[in-house]
């Protein structure tokens, strides 16, 4: 069976100052199957958002794109003209951004924003578009029916605005939804509701989602498979649970170790009494840090981009790119050393 989205060796460069060419993605290969929520994780500058923009034809005009990205086995996305994108963007691939406030027009009602593109793309009349908008609000669990259609974005909370943005993205029944950090600006209590919504949409209507996040906890809760990006390359990919509980790439492991230990059990000592020096003792164990700072794809050294920061790097790592090894079915690691990483404490 062919994947819904099949991206192979995607590379993107942007024109820089003084005629320079700045690579932003070196080599990205990834697949999304139907009804799957697939994650991309990485720090800022790793190329995760650029991947999304390349898949939506939102890159600047002079960007150079190579490799291939095939939708549904029949539609090549790389090399499309501006006009050709109009048959894909919004209708077959839709997007949800981090900042729903910026994604919505502040002076138009929710109803107008939801119906405008439906009338354009689906050719619906006003009445049919409104009926469909009501149906969409229901699908994204926004209460209030017609009243909600008459409201303006500023009258809604951040969580509700993001739901409107998701409804708008779903309007043309896209095959693939790309969500770029859609919950990063929200409180955890609200984030949980949006994650639940994505999962409901997947279960109810077989929606496929490419979900971009920097939060490994969110990745674990929502996605079935994930890709870890660093400096414009995929470092490790595999089933999310395996990837995060038994990482094989030193970078994935380092990211996991640098998190606060939120995943330990949250329990009291046996007798229920907290010792006064408990916190001071807890603090003697500092968070594990990754030495240095993240490199941009343009500044990445030859060879493995993580090598200068890697505790396991060998001389060969800095010379040429690491081979990609399939350590288990579906779990691939771009590392020459493949060190024995002690399991990340769950």
């Amino acid at each position, binding site marked *: 069976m062919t994947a819904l989205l099949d991206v192979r060796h995607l590379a993107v460069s942007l024109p820089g100052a003084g005629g320079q060419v700045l690579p932003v993605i070196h080599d990205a290969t990834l697949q999304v199957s139907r009804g799957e929520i697939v994650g991309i994780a990485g*720090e*800022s500058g790793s190329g995760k958002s650029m991947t999304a923009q390349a898949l939506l034809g939102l890159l600047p005009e002079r960007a150079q794109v190579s490799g291939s990205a095939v939708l549904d086995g029949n539609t090549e996305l790389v090399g499309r003209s501006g006009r050709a994108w109009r048959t894909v963007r919004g209708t077959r691939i839709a997007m949800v951004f981090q900042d729903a406030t910026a994604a919505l027009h502040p002076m138009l009602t929710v109803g107008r924003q939801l119906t405008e593109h439906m009338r354009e793309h689906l050719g619906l009349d006003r009445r049919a578009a409104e009926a469909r908008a009501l149906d969409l609000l229901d699908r994204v669990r926004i209460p209030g029916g017609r009243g909600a259609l008459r409201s303006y974005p500023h009258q809604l*909370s*951040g*969580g*509700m605005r993001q739901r409107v943005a998701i409804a708008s993205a779903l309007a043309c029944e896209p095959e693939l939804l790309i969500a770029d950090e859609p919950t990063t600006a929200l*409180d*955890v*209590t*609200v*984030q*949980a*509701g949006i*994650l*639940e919504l994505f*999962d409901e949409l997947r279960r109810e209507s077989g929606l496929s989602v490419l979900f971009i996040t*920097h*939060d*490994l*906890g*969110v990745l*674990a*809760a*929502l996605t079935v498979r994930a890709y870890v990006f660093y400096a414009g390359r995929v470092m490790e990919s595999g089933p*999310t*649970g395996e990837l*995060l*509980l038994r990482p094989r790439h030193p970078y994935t492991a*380092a*990211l996991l170790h*640098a*998190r*606060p*230990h*939120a*995943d330990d059990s*949250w*329990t*009291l*000592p046996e*007798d*229920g*009494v*907290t010792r*006064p020096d*408990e*916190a*001071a003792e*807890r*603090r003697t164990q*500092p*968070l*594990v*840090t*990754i030495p*240095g*700072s*993240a490199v941009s794809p343009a500044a990445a050294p030859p060879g493995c981009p993580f090598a200068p920061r890697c505790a396991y790097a060998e001389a060969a790592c800095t010379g040429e790119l690491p081979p990609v090894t399939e350590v288990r079915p579906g779990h691939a690691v771009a590392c020459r050393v493949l060190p024995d990483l002690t399991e*990340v404490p*769950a």
Partner: protein
Amino acid sequence: MSALTVDDAAVEYSSRGRGTVRAVDGVSLEVARGQIVGLVGESGCGKSSLARAVAGLEPVASGQVLIDGRPVSPLGWRRRTGQDVRLQMVFQNPYASLNPRRTVGSQVADGLPEGRSSAVRHAEVSRLLDLVGMPADAAARYPHQFSGGQRQRIAIARALAPEPEVLIADEPVTALDASSQAQIVNLLVSLVAELSVGVLFISHDLALVREIADITAVMYLGRIVEMGPTQQVWGAPRHPYTRALIDALPRITEAPRLPVPLRGEVPDAAHVPTGCRFRPRCPVAMDVCTEQPPIITLGPAMAECWLAESARDDDRPSDKH
């Protein structure tokens, strides 16, 4: 004596057409030297208003804020006295909190007491930069030459210059990348131990607060609804809101599951529900919750909830002292 004492403080904003909004409505807490107090809550709960009032950036409508036993005077046009600078702030965005047109050294020196020779000031700046892990030659450079994590180090060095007793850190790592976040947190933690400074650590990142705080205070709609030793608050939360916050955290576990959302939204602070403020969203609300809930103390912890009272009556070993 606590370095910082907030006693029944309230912060009010008034605007035409909306009347008076109580963003902070009767908050009491203490921060001792060498202690980290974590303040958590959803956006709009009043945590930043509280921080601003504590720093004297906003007057308190009632109650008081004491540093080392003396009240904080609101910020005015005059240079602050030696007493008032014993409390310093570290802000969320180190790209906005440092002046792009002045050297790092001159900004760090801003906080040094007046009347010292330039040689002494120079040496002090070097010492402060070293304290936060920056090279001494950073003093002659400008903020744009540094990464976000390095800028936050510089902001911390500046805050430490007047030898404060209390630091208020308002989301100090939220704007930073994963690898610099951990570095800045480790720096703050080591400074607490080294300099015995107290920190009011305001964050929406519950996991981080759980990691470093002695005391955790949970704020909802202008009030602290639960507070106590961090281990106790997270291990055995007494307030349904605290439990909801913990359940909403996504985790990495062998059996993955979606975090649990909390229904509804934080109400407008201009229209606070009667009785318990959390009642409209509370999954276990009862009839009695329409009345103002009592503040129940359980050993060193407190919770403002009708249910916490019945919990106290249970025979729990932790409640026997």
